[in-house]
């Protein structure tokens, strides 16, 4: 790295020339990616990709090429080089959890133009480290942006980097590099206001070594959907294992019961306490929501793996008796809004009256089977306490992309963790 001069103006000019030098050095390694609808030959999505370790291996995000994974007969992947050459790329490997896909490409090209091949940076980096990100902004051309490395995202099961630069749509799949052009990660997502996320290179290296380098990889005989199913199931299985491994779930006082909260650092806890102020205000509702912000992108209308636990404590403020109160309290099941009906079947429920640690409850164990993935479901579990004449505790668990066995284990553990205060 160059030694930086001291004055601000000189600093700025060095940074400008840094970007310029870097861009001209690496831009031949960053390609544009189009996913083409084979019927109309028009693009369905666009992103970026870069060469990694070999001049025939392109890396991009999984979500850029998700349509090819899910509908291989309808779409194909097309690469466009900086000089405007085009060709077809083939899907080689995917990592759904970290949003990485490896493409095999460019037999037609074969180093004609002299591509730049990225490799991983060996040394660790610390917060405040200057990094650059390249990508095909809005499919209008490859640009370079700069920003600072801000460490690994807390409260997440994903291990992504926070990046203060502006990653925008189309830049997904582009490389994030240091000043020398060493790869730090892959652009993946943005939340606007210069809050961007980068997938660390180590996951890419893992995937690359398991597939390309060891050459153990054969195209899956069952098709890509089975790979997706396996990876989603592994992810949710890991979450369940992680939660079950905790010896005793930390609890929060929730009026009539001690309920699990703050179970895992990746789970956010939010509470709310409100009276229903309608003309017939008769209830006070206390809410606690526990959820993680991570989900697995499969296709745009199928996001899986998000865990949500809800507690509703409804207190009667004016009903004459329990029957009235219970009747006027609608209890709805919690279903994911991130899955459209195209991908999921209606729920099948098992409900019964169950003694949960000394209190009679009604339990609803509902599962919506995912149509494409034979072993995966969306779990929607609900518990309603029945023994308190003036109060109802309604608790829901929702997680999608889970196997039946894991769902049952999670619910069983959850039920064991509820402690009543009477």
């Amino acid at each position, binding site marked *: 790295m160059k030694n930086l001069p001291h004055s601000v103006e000189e600093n700025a000019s060095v940074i400008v020339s840094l970007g310029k030098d870097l861009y001209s050095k690496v831009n031949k390694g960053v390609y544009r990616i189009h996913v083409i609808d084979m019927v109309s030959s028009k693009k369905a999505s666009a992103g970026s990709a870069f060469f990694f370790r070999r001049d025939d291996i392109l890396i991009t995000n999984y979500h850029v090429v998700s349509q090819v994974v899910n509908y291989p007969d309808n779409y194909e992947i097309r690469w466009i080089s900086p000089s405007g050459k085009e060709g077809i790329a083939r899907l080689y490997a995917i990592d759904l959890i970290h949003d990485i896909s490896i493409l095999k490409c460019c037999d037609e090209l074969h180093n004609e133009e002299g591509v730049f091949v990225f490799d991983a940076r060996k040394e660790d980096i610390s917060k405040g480290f200057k990094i650059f990100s390249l990508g095909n902004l809005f499919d209008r051309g490859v640009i370079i942006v700069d920003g600072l490395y801000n460490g690994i995202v807390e409260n997440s099961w994903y291990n992504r980097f926070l990046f203060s630069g502006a990653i925008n749509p189309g830049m997904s799949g582009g490389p994030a590099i240091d000043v020398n052009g060493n790869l730090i990660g892959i652009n993946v997502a943005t939340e606007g206001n210069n809050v961007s996320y980068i997938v660390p290179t180590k996951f890419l290296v893992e995937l690359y070594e398991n597939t390309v380098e060891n050459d153990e990889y054969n195209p899956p005989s069952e098709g890509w959907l089975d790979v997706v199913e396996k990876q989603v199931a592994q992810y949710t299985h890991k979450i369940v294992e992680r939660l079950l491994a905790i010896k005793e779930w930390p609890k929060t006082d929730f009026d009539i019961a001690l309920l699990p909260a703050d179970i895992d650092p990746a789970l956010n806890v939010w509470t709310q306490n409100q009276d229903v102020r*309608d*003309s*017939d205000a*008769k209830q006070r509702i206390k809410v606690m929501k526990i959820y993680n912000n991570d989900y697995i992108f499969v296709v745009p209308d199928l996001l899986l793996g998000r865990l949500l636990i809800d507690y509703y404590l409804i207190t009667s403020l*004016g*009903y004459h008796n*329990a*029957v*009235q*109160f*219970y*009747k*006027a*309290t*609608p*209890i*709805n*099941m919690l279903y994911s809004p991130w899955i459209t009906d195209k991908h999921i*079947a*209606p*729920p*099948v*429920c*098992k*409900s*019964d*009256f*169950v*003694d*949960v640690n000394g209190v*009679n409850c*009604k*339990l*609803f*164990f*509902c*599962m919506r*089977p995912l*149509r494409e993935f*034979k072993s995966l*479901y969306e779990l*929607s579990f609900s518990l*309603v306490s*029945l023994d308190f004449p003036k109060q109802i505790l309604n608790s829901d668990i929702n997680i999608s992309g889970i196997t*039946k066995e894991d769902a*049952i284990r999670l*619910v*069983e553990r959850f*039920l*064991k963790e509820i402690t009543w205060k009477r």
Partner: protein
Amino acid sequence: MEEIVVEITHQMSFVEYKVFNRFPIRIGRAFDNDLILADPFISPHHLEVGINNGLLYANEVGNENGVFYNKHHYWGRFIPIQIGEEVVIGNTKMRFFAKDSEVKKTRLLYKMPGFIKFLSKDHVAVPFILIVILFISLTDYLLSGGAKDFPAIKIVMDIIARFVFASMWCGFWALIGKVAKHSPKFLFQMVTFFLIYVLYFLCSYGLNYIGYIFNMAFSLAMLQFLLFGIIFGILFYANLSIATTLSRKFKLIITSILLIIILFISVVYYSYSKKDGSIYEPNASIYPSFVMIGKVKDIPQFIEEVNHTDFRLAVKKNE
């Protein structure tokens, strides 16, 4: 062979008894009748009185004067007659008695309870029905937990709907009565209908309370249906008895067919709601299924059952 004793009061004064064992008994002015009555207001062939399945009936043969029976004026065929009650034709009163016990038994079928007789008087029945409708609607309103889903217009619509429903029921029986030329009073029908409706209504809410208090769980909807079916069956059978002279066997068959149809519809409805693999609970108010009966399970039992549930059943059907 049954024997019928007829008490004849000629010109409202002179009483005579005659025994008949051949049926039907033909009554009229002409000489070829079994019972010849010298009354200018009686037709030559006025009436036939017969026994059908142990029930006494009067059958008008060819007259334009009609019959007064039980203070009501009838024209028609197969008018049921109660043992010991007055039948008036022209200026002659008749009462029929049975020597045979089998005939006596049939009296009971026709006897109305005193309070229903009282209620079916016009000046009692009209306010009674109105009070019942109001009672049902208001109780429903109060028990439903307040005005949240119950705007005033809904109560009004409820009252109208109940009234229309009751009228349809009564109109149906009026029609049956017209066909049978023997129509029990419209208001009487209204009163019996609402008495039974109130009973049903109290039962269904009563069940909820009982279930809640004694911690019982069962399919309340099915029980309510069963209760309604039984009550409806009784009501239907009773009305068949009042309005027609069909044989008991026939009435039972018709009532059973009706109940089977109701059961069939409800089963179809119930299974239809399960068709897509969902049960009725997930998105409905949970309340109806809060009522518990029997043994409450423990967690391992529940988990075991969940384990054995095929959550992919609905998808498999389509595949």
